[in-house]
């Protein structure tokens, strides 16, 4: 999990988002609560004024109407309670609202005149209340003033219910945007990381040989990497070509002196033991040089191999061989699975198939059969004399000939074996249904 960029980004961004949104929700909640409380206070103040305006001093007595306009004062257990206290020779409760008949509310005794005092109270029966008290002086018609304190209290439940509703709305409406935001975020991440995914795709293409370089458009951050990768691949290819050319030149320059030496000997046409020995050793030298150079020239699988279609190469080889062995009138059967490909260097494939086919044509009487199957199987059969079982290992060792009269398998099969080994494949020799030798090469996909 730690290895996925996308997952990492997604988790980090989601966490931050959720945290931020949660804090926002909490702040909103808090603010609302505060505003509700303020509203409650304002409401209670208005109730006090209502009570004040409803009350009368009649014949020096405090009178409150039986039924107050605010119905909640009249109904018992309505949640809104009020009382009035007279401060004359002590504190005397002179009026209680209809709703607070059996409610015991521990209001403060007095509130300073002209001032509101707000409290949070708990009634004797456990009800939680917001309370507001107001001290006032009321005058009789004769101008005699008496000090009263008006009390109003409201059940907390009411404001709590409001908060609860708000909270439900808040959180309810909260979830949908959060989900949408998270999805948007995921979408944005995928879009942003697309160039990285494209690199991965293009690399996969190159590995399967469908393309030779990273060709897409990339954002600035990746461009450096992509360009360097392309340069690396190009450099590797150039190096391979350079190496191969210099080896080819080396072959030319080494073999010509050998040819000259040999022809000098031919000129002597002396059959002395010395001359024979020198000729033999020269031939051996030539074979060894050829073999080692062939071996070194085998490039093996490059870093990101191209996929090479086998059929065209096979066709050009068969053209060449049919021309070279025209006199023999060989009939060549070709069984090749369509679109068979070889992952590696084209030169190596040519060398491998060229040697196999050349041997087949050389030793065949009339028929040669080539089979190519995906996976990869290369098989060449002929109807010649075949290779005896006990000589198979000899043949595969370098420079050894079975039949010294003919050119023999010479180093051809040894070269094929070498190439096959470098590509991690296997070579086997046995008999063919056609009557001669069957040589099978199996090369792994990777």
């Amino acid at each position, binding site marked *: 999990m730690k290895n996925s960029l996308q997952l990492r980004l997604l988790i980090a961004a989601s966490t931050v988002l959720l945290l931020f949104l949660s804090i926002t929700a909490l702040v909103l909640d808090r603010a609302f609560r505060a505003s509700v409380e303020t509203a409650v206070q304002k409401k209670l103040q208005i109730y006090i004024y209502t009570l004040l305006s409803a009350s009368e001093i009649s014949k020096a007595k405090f009178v409150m109407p039986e039924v107050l306009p605010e119905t909640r004062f009249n109904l018992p257990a309505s949640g809104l309670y009020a009382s009035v206290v007279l401060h004359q020779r002590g504190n005397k409760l002179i009026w209680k609202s209809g709703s607070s008949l059996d409610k015991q509310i521990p209001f403060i005794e007095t509130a300073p005149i002209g001032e509101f005092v707000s409290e949070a109270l708990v009634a004797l029966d456990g009800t939680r209340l917001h309370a507001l008290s107001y001290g006032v002086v009321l005058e009789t018609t004769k101008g005699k003033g008496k000090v009263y304190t008006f009390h109003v209290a409201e059940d907390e439940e009411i404001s709590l219910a409001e908060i609860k509703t708000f909270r439900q709305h808040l959180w309810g409406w909260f979830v949908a945007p959060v989900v949408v935001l998270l999805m948007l975020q995921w979408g944005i991440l995928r879009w942003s990381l697309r160039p990285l995914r494209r690199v991965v795709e293009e690399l996969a293409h190159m590995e399967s040989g469908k393309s030779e370089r990273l060709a897409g458009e990339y954002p600035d951050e990746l461009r450096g990497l992509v360009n360097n990768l392309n340069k690396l691949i190009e450099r590797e290819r150039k190096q391979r070509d350079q190496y191969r050319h210099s080896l080819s030149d080396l072959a030319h320059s080494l*073999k*010509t002196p050998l*040819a*000259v030496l040999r022809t000098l000997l*031919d000129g002597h046409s002396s059959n002395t033991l010395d001359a024979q020995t020198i000729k033999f050793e020269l031939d051996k030298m030539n074979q060894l040089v050829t073999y080692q150079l062939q071996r070194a020239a085998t490039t093996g699988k490059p870093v990101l191999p191209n996929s090479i279609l086998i059929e065209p190469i096979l066709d*050009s080889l068969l053209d060449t061989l049919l021309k070279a062995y025209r006199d023999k*009138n060989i009939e060549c059967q070709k069984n090749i699975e369509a679109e068979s490909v070889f992952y590696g260097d084209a030169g190596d494939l040519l060398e491998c198939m060229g040697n196999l086919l050349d041997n087949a044509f050389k030793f065949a009487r009339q028929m040669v059969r080539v089979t190519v199957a995906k996976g990869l199987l290369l098989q060449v059969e002929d109807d010649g004399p075949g290779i005896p079982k006990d000589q198979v290992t000899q043949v595969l060792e370098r420079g050894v000939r079975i039949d010294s009269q003919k050119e023999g398998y010479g180093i051809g099969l040894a070269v094929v074996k070498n190439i096959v080994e470098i590509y991690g494949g296997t070579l086997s020799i046995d008999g063919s249904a056609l009557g001669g030798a069957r040589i099978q090469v199996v090369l792994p996909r990777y």
Partner: protein
Amino acid sequence: MRVLVVEDEAPLRQYLKQRLSEKNYVVETAEAGAQALLLTKDSPFDIAVIDLGLPDISGIDLIKRLREAQFTFPIIILTARSQWRDKVQGFNAGADDYLVKPFHLEELLARFSALIRRVGGWATPLLQCGPIVLHSITEEVRVHNQPVDLTAFEYKVLEYLMLHPGKIVSKMELTEHLYQQDFDRDSNVIEVFVGRLRKKIDPNEAIHPIETLRGRGYRFTVPRV
């Protein structure tokens, strides 16, 4: 047979010229592609041996140019490069055979005769026309299964005619293809050889293998078997 040898390494070039001449081939040599092309303008060749690693134009290019110039004589590539990609390239360019250095001279000669025979339409070393049988490797000639003794040049004339059966071969052509340049070219010598050849092959005048076409040349008339 006229042979063109294009080889930049002097010792190998001299060697080929010497040994091929011993085998009665008429040899012209060139050490580079440009020179080779010039030589082809003189008189036609029957076969060419070309090294791939030439100093001026590559052997492959030379072969391509020769084919473009409509020269159809067989070409053997002689080279140190033994990779199949080079062989395939050589054949694609128009070569007919490919020999890797160092080589055995016998192999080269065998391939020469094979290619020349092929041109004449002969698939095997045995050229048989009617009762006349010529073995191009052993250089034996038999008529009605009786061996016939021919000199080297008589043999060459017969072989050339049998390799171009039914075609009119001018005296000039015979002279050019069978004689080195520094030989005294007297067309009467050809007449003499043809006469002798007729006597040896057809003493009873029953077969009439070689027809004389006045002013045009000779033609081998016995049909192929």
